[in-house]
């Protein structure tokens, strides 16, 4: 095979793995940005180490970034990579098992000294002891090549070595025939004020690319043509947290309001606060408060004052916000509470994914305090779900919990931007007329009217004590409390009238219905499509609205012989569905390993279910 040979593939998964200090996240995001521009569909999965400063070279310090890209539509970051880039022994040993047989492993031999092996707790060198038999191992001293490329540069040795991830990136760009321009432009912009670094990284990137060709390391290279049937439109590469941030700002605008975000940093939700803090010229106010309670309480205060209050957090923070969320329920103020879920309980697995806050979102408040719950499925779905949460909050005067997770938060994919005309406003109307005003006067949706401070003649008091349904004064009357409890419940259930019945993807009826929510959407859809290819009558139902559940579900459930609910928790949605629709049987399938489902494992499990006699 000559080195020029160009092989066409239509679906590739690459995993970049190295020490936390090796810049693998940056390498991955650059490869992603370029691949998006090339016109492939893609999905990514960054896997950060839990420790910020795990000792260099250790297994605990390994940071990974996986990208799946393709000439057709894809839903997941890929099951098993075709290519593994391993920048040190720890990265190699913790990742090579996931590679598909015959896959390519690019190893940086510059980091394979005795000491490096020891740090990775290896007694022998996996490059020579047969560990990697069955894979195509490409060895390259990337450290050395980087130093050579920068031989006549002024930088310190340390700074030079830091460029090595761009050598790696260059090699992989060559291997998959990607253009260098997007990254070269990015370097220019990024190091505007440090041109010497821009130049050094560019040099190393080009060296990696050229050596990929010259050194004939790979026995040919590949192209992955762009998606041909991609729907026409404007696209942008989006990460989940970014999608939420701009969706929240857009949602407030569509409500005719200015957003106020009160928040407290917590992984993996912090990016939303960071991103929104940049958007000050969109009338955004952000306050980093002293804790999660203050975060939600400032948001409640801001909503009382006539902004759209929002607060962003992860599971432990949602727990702290519990009491205040109840205050927003009883005062019937609009509020969006974002929970980017991570592994629990307690601090749990802060950098890993789980969907285990669903029941906390559902029931985690004292008293009968139902709130609508919306869950996003992917980075590109985050925007729409954030807008939807703002719509429900303002139209129904209620706090809404918007669930995302770590996998969505840090994953990226191309997002087909909405047509501006398709973004339908849902403007809020504040009351200004004192005639007949009481704080709990309601519209036909049972939403109470909203009067903001500063409006003459509408002075009123709201608060945590139960209020009289008519006058809005404090009331301990038993009948009134019964009535107000029922009104609050009916109002939330009434949201159902404004949401569509979700469509079943795949078979409309048949042997198996897979009901999924949140980020299990992608892997579920892929698995169900594969089952269908095998001739199984399987359907996939994705639930964006967790509470209230949309109308029309029993009719769908009745069309399938079996129903299974895969979740990254021990069966929380299944429990909810089972109690709401006791006439059906919902099989659970759980995974709580801090990792997303793979389409392959889902398919295998579904096949087992199909074989079981019920």
């Amino acid at each position: 095979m000559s080195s020029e040979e160009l092989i066409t593939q239509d679906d590739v998964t690459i995993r970049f793995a190295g020490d936390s200090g090796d810049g693998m996240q940056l390498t991955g995001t650059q490869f992603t940005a370029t691949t998006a521009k090339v016109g492939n569909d893609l999905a990514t999965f960054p896997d950060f180490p839990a420790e910020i400063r795990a000792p260099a070279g250790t297994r605990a310090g390994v940071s990974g970034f996986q990208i799946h890209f393709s000439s057709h539509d894809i839903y997941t970051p890929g099951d098993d990579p075709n290519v593994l880039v391993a920048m040190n022994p720890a990265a190699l040993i913790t990742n090579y098992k996931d590679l598909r047989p015959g896959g390519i492993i690019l190893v940086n031999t510059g980091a394979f000294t005795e000491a490096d092996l020891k740090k990775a707790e290896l007694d022998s060198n996996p490059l020579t002891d047969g560990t990697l038999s069955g894979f195509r191992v490409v060895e390259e001293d990337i450290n050395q090549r980087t130093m050579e490329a920068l031989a006549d540069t002024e930088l310190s040795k340390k700074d030079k070595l830091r460029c090595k991830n761009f050598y790696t990136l260059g090699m992989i760009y060559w291997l998959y025939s990607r253009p260098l321009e997007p990254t070269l432009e990015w370097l220019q912009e990024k190091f505007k004020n440090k041109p010497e670094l821009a130049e050094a990284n560019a040099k190393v990137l080009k060296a990696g690319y050229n050596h990929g060709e010259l050194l004939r390391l790979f026995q040919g290279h590949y192209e992955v043509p762009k998606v041909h049937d991609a729907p026409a439109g404007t696209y942008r590469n989006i990460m989940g947290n970014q999608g939420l941030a701009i969706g929240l700002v857009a949602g407030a605008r569509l409500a005719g309001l200015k957003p106020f975000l009160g928040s407290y940093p917590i992984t993996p939700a912090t990016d939303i606060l960071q991103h929104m803090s940049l958007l000050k010229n969109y009338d955004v106010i952000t306050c980093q408060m002293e804790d999660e309670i203050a975060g939600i309480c400032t948001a409640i205060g801001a909503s009382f004052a006539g902004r759209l209050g929002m607060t962003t957090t992860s599971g432990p923070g949602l727990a702290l916000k519990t009491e205040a969320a109840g205050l927003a329920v009883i005062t019937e103020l609009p509020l969006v509470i974002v929970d980017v879920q991570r592994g629990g309980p307690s601090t749990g697995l802060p950098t890993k994914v789980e969907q285990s806050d669903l029941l906390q979102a559902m029931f985690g408040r004292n008293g009968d305090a139902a709130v609508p719950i919306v869950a996003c499925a992917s980075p590109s779905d985050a925007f729409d779900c954030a807008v939807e949460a703002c719509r429900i909050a303002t139209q129904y005067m209620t706090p809404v919990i918007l669930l995302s997770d770590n996998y969505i938060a840090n994953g990226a994919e191309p997002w087909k931007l909405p047509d501006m005309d398709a973004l339908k406003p849902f403007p809020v109307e504040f009351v200004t007329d004192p005639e007949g005003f009481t704080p709990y006067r309601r519209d036909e949706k049972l939403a109470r009217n909203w009067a903001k401070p500063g409006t003459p003649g509408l002075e009123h008091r709201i608060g945590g004590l139960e209020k009289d349904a008519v006058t809005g004064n404090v009331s301990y009357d038993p009948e009134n409390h019964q009535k107000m409890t029922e009104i609050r419940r009916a109002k939330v259930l009434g949201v159902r009238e404004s949401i569509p019945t979700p469509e079943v993807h795949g078979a409309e009826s048949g042997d198996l219905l897979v009901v999924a929510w949140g980020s299990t959407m992608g892997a579920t859809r892929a698995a169900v499509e594969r089952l269908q290819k095998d001739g199984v009558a399987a359907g996939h139902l994705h639930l964006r609205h967790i509470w209230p559940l949309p109308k029309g579900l029993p009719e769908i459930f009745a069309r399938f012989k079996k129903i299974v609910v895969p979740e990254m928790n021990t069966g929380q949605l299944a429990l909810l569905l089972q109690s709401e629709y006791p006439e059906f049987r919902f099989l659970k399938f759980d995974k709580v390993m801090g990792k997303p489902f793979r389409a392959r494992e889902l398919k295998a499990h579904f096949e087992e279910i199909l074989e079981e006699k019920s």
Partner: protein
Amino acid sequence: MSVVQQLKAKDFKSDQEVRWCPGCGDYSILSGVQKTMADMGIPRENYVVVSGIGCSSRFPYYMETYGMHGIHGRANAIATGVKVANPDLSVWVITGDGDGLSIGGNHMIHSLRRNVDMKIILFNNEIYGLTKGQYSPTTPEGTKTKTSPYGSLDHPFNPIQLALGAGATFVARTMDVNPKHMKQVLQAAAEHKGAAFVEVWQNCVIFNDGAYKSWTEKAVRDEKTINLVPGEKMIFGKDRDKGLSTDGCRITVCSAEEASVWDPTVDSAGPAFMMTQLDNEPDMPRPMGVLRSVDRPTLDQQVWDQVGAVTGKKGEGTLKDLIYTPDCWVVE
């Protein structure tokens, strides 16, 4: 331009029956706040009163203003949201010694350091009133309460010291039984631009009656307290013949002529802090009045200035700008 009507205290009375125990010190604070608000020349609809939970925190329901009765300890945080969202509002926080210093202690110090422009009135009755008589973070050591039947072991906070330590720009103290003094202090607080912290000694007739008696009773008040008036000599005593003088390290009693001038506007919080030491000395008068009053930019103002500055620089963002960023690409 709309002419602001001269409001009266009664304009601030809501139609709700006030339900504190007869004789509770809260009544006089309610009337003091109503009088102060009426005199500020601020339209009634621009007042927002936010409270936490406690006897004292029922306050907003009795005020004909916008109001929120929040949750225990969180009034400062809720009020911060109100004020930052709309700096045109005059925002008042009503809290208790338990509400504001125990469960809400964290929000208290942070709202003070941020200098959010709001008036924080802390009703200090040295007891948990609403829950019927447990010791609070200001209850003196040794006090017998329902949860300290053999005497409280906790060392208390001095609220003034806490506020000073948190970087408050305005700190003052008054008492429920001296309405005239209270009005002066509340007015000074209302006129302060920034977080104004006012501790009000408040008698709980039911669970901690007479806690401040030895300082506040008419017969002893002039001897046992001293009213600190900015720019005036520190004079006290029934016959106003005694003064306090300080060498910067110590405070001593002297004649009225020799008394030092009180200045709460100095950069250092040191002198105010020194004054609070008098609280621990049985033979000295306790300081009342304005202990600190300095200027520092408020958070709410700065937040809006920053939004304005960034918008000025980047231009007002449209919904389209937000979504269609320069890094997008088109598929035909």
